């Protein structure tokens, strides 16, 4: 057993261990953290200073807001953190909910504004979907046993009410194929859907009324259901819905008065007022952390008081590049008029295409590879080869995906160059491997014991996948996808390849319009003739892009935390 010529030291013999190496290693790691943090922070501060120009403000302006806003909010925050933790949670939620609400309301307002979807289309879609759902429910009630027949009804009902017989999309695709092989296009009688009939009607209610019906009532209904369950009282739920609708009906008076228009008022009430109202009511009734409600008041009060005082004393605010005008106007040659609105809209539409194309394909592939693909034998080796290649694809330079998009979508199937859909599909291809890999990780994290327990109870593979694996894996899949989409928003090279233009001044209102994108606009600004655009306006664009990214990653973290707590 003993190795000749070699003595093994036992640390206990001398009673001392050298700690030097351990300490040195710890310090080296600490230094690495420091370098990483400092370099990122310096970069961010540098960009933020260029974008916001805080030093261009009167020192008095900083002093006023420091005293009215920073000191009171920090004070209350520290108080909650140290002495009253439940109140801190309430403070966090009551401040965060309206912010998220504003984002939702703004997003929907933009969608309606650029007519991506009009209020009438929203309404028609809602009615048609409800009718389809009604048909399915009624069928289920009268013929509960006919499972196969119900599958047919589930497919046919939406086709009849939403798409029409036969659907326009099918005819268009068919005609596309026919024109490729040189046959004349087909056209003939078709039965329009309920949705199309509504859209054809010569008169329609005003936009804000449609928005109340198709947005406020569903949202208020869901919240009312929640209230009714929580209080075990249907009446309170109905009263809530009634109150909500009554508040939105003030629109023709309150909207123009506040300068946000009738539709703006309806959206603001629906998203910024109703959810916090439900939350606050719950907090007051449980009488838990009520003090936290003071936080948003301190915050808003501080901003208002500061604004009044600054105007009173005549302190100049910072002349920042990132302001309301920047977020609502298009690129201009004059730095003061230059804005970022079309690229913001374009990037969000790009992300919709990216998510809609990469998510189903990526998750489907991951489910097959993890749950169905053979793991042993020759075919198992082949699956392994495929997985290695997917890993490699994740590292292929993004410019290559741009070239692929150019060759595939523009040259081969003649999609319009530089269109939103082409950019979205090219970037979707780029993040597809990342989506597959992260979804695979999420599926792998579901313990095998759960699967085996379900198999042991006689469940089929489909039942195991649907009822055991997917529910547990969905939060991980969603987090991975959102992080991947976050990467997609900053991609520039593929957009250059597919011909996204340097300056697009109209926000796209369909997916075949010319694509303005945030990173493309930033890149264009980097070579502008005006130094102020290269330095100031560009920095404001970078900060906006980072904020959008922060919101997306924050959402990913929230989803993960929420589900982790439940599991």
């Amino acid at each position, binding site marked *: 057993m003993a190795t000749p010529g070699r003595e093994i030291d036992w640390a206990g013999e001398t009673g001392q261990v050298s700690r030097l190496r351990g300490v040195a290693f710890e310090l080296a790691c600490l230094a690495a953290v420091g370098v990483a943090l400092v370099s990122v922070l310096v970069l961010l501060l540098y960009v933020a200073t260029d974008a916001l120009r805080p030093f261009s403000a009167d020192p008095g302006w900083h002093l006023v807001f420091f005293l009215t806003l920073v000191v009171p909010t920090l004070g209350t925050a520290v108080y909650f953190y140290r002495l009253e933790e439940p109140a801190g949670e309430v403070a966090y939620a009551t401040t965060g909910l309206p912010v998220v609400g504003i984002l939702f309301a703004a997003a929907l307002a933009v969608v309606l504004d650029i007519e991506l979807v009009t209020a009438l289309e929203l309404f028609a879609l809602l009615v048609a979907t409800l009718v389809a759902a009604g048909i399915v429910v009624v069928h289920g009630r009268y013929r509960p046993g006919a499972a196969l027949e119900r599958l047919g009804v589930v497919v046919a009902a939406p086709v009849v009410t939403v798409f029409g017989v036969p659907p326009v999309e099918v005819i268009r695709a068919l005609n596309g194929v026919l024109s490729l092989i040189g046959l004349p296009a087909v056209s003939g009688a078709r039965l329009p859907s309920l949705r199309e009939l509504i859209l054809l*009607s010569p*008169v329609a209610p005003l936009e804000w009324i449609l928005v109340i019906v198709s947005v406020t009532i569903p949202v208020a209904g869901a919240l009312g259901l929640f209230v009714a369950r929580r209080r075990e009282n249907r009446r309170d739920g109905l009263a809530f819905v009634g109150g909500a609708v009554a508040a939105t009906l003030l629109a023709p008076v309150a909207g123009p008065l506040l300068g946000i228009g009738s539709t703006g008022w309806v959206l603001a009430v629906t998203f910024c007022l109703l959810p916090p109202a439900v939350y606050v009511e719950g907090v007051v009734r449980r009488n838990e952390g009520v003090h936290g409600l003071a936080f948003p008041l301190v915050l808003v009060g501080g901003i208002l008081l500061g604004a009044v005082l600054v105007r009173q004393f005549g302190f100049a605010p910072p002349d920042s590049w990132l302001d309301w005008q920047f977020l609502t106007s298009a690129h201009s*040659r004059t730095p003061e008029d230059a804005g970022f609105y079309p690229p913001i809209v374009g990037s969000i539409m790009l992300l919709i295409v990216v998510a809609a194309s990469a998510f189903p394909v990526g998750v489907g592939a991951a489910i097959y590879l993890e749950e169905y693909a053979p793991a042993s034998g020759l075919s198992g080796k082949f699956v392994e080869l495929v997985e290695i290649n997917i890993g490699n694809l994740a590292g292929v330079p993004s410019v290559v995906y741009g070239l692929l998009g150019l060759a595939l979508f523009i040259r081969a199937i003649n999609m319009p160059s530089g269109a939103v859909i082409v950019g979205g599909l090219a970037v979707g291809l780029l993040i597809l491997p990342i989506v597959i890999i992260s979804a695979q990780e999420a599926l792998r994290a579901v313990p095998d014991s759960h699967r085996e327990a379900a198999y042991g109870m006689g469940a089929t593979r489909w039942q195991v996948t649907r009822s055991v694996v997917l529910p547990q894996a969905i939060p991980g899949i969603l987090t991975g996808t959102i992080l991947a989409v976050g990467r997609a928003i900053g991609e520039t090279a593929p957009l250059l390849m597919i011909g*996204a*233009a340097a*300056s697009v001044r109209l926000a796209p209102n369909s997916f075949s319009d*010319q694509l303005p994108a945030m990173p493309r606009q930033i890149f264009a600004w*980097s070579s502008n*003739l005006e130094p102020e655009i*290269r330095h100031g306006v560009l920095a404001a664009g970078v900060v906006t892009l980072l904020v959008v990214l922060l919101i997306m990653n924050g959402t990913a973290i929230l989803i993960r935390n929420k589900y982790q707590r439940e599991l």
Partner: protein
Amino acid sequence: MTQDPQRLSDTVSRRKFIAATGAASAAAIAGCTENTGEESEGLSGDVVVKGSSTVFPVSDTFAENFMEENSDVNVTVDSTGSGGGFKNHFCPGEADLNGASRPITGEEEEQCGENDVTPVEFQVASDAVTMAVNNEADFVDCVTPDEMSQIWREGGAEQWSDVRDEWPDEDIVKFGPAETSGTYDWFNENIVGEDYNHTAEHQPTEEDETIVAGIRDNEYAIGYFGYAYYNSNSDDVKALEVDGGDGCTEPSLANAKDGSYPMARPLFIYASESSLEEKDQVYAFLEYFLENAETETVEDIGYVPSNTELRDQNLSKLEEYDTGSSTSTE
């Protein structure tokens, strides 16, 4: 939960109330309707402009001004280089207009022809190609075209002293446009000369801003770009005077206009004939472009505007493609 008679009567009255308010609000909503399907008159649709980075500032400015008056027309402008624009966008039929800082080549016309795209040429302004060095480089103030050719030809001078003996024994660091650029083509043909090729040993870029940055940071650097980029960076780099045989002249709009600066060159915009005839918005934008190419706006950006004679000539050429507003707007 017990239900007392009081509450029951409440329910009944509420039902009546709901019916009454329902009828009233139906009447109210009937009043609150609007007519759908209103279509606004006027121009709409896309105008896709690609091409030269030199022409880009002009096209971009005109696009902005044009869209202030025609808010439904989407004029998108991109800077791809003259050759890049012809090859990748204009000739495949994906662009309506292409800016160019040199005339179209035969090869490009052939490519356009294969795709049934007929280019229509308009000269819109002139530019002075500017040769620039670092601000610290006080040894050089004026060069001749032949010296520039020595510097920029393949296998030419590597050190400054190779060109002129009194210049320092330092490597020449070259920053220039990429091959897709019309400025490159013009310089290659007119200055480097037909007997030589343009050097490949320079930092090529489609972004003129990068050339300026490269020259600013390197004492022995040299590079060239359109006058507009020098105009907006005149503190960062030093422009060289050029001696075309009649003494040294500095690059300026005035010198380019009167012809005394040897490196003045025309700028073009090419329109696709089918776009002009089929898309009213393209015709309208080009008309606006040609009318305004003669104004001070062009001079403010840093180019020599066209003259009234050229403008009228362009406009009458454009009128040949006027099909009236009877064609459908997209």
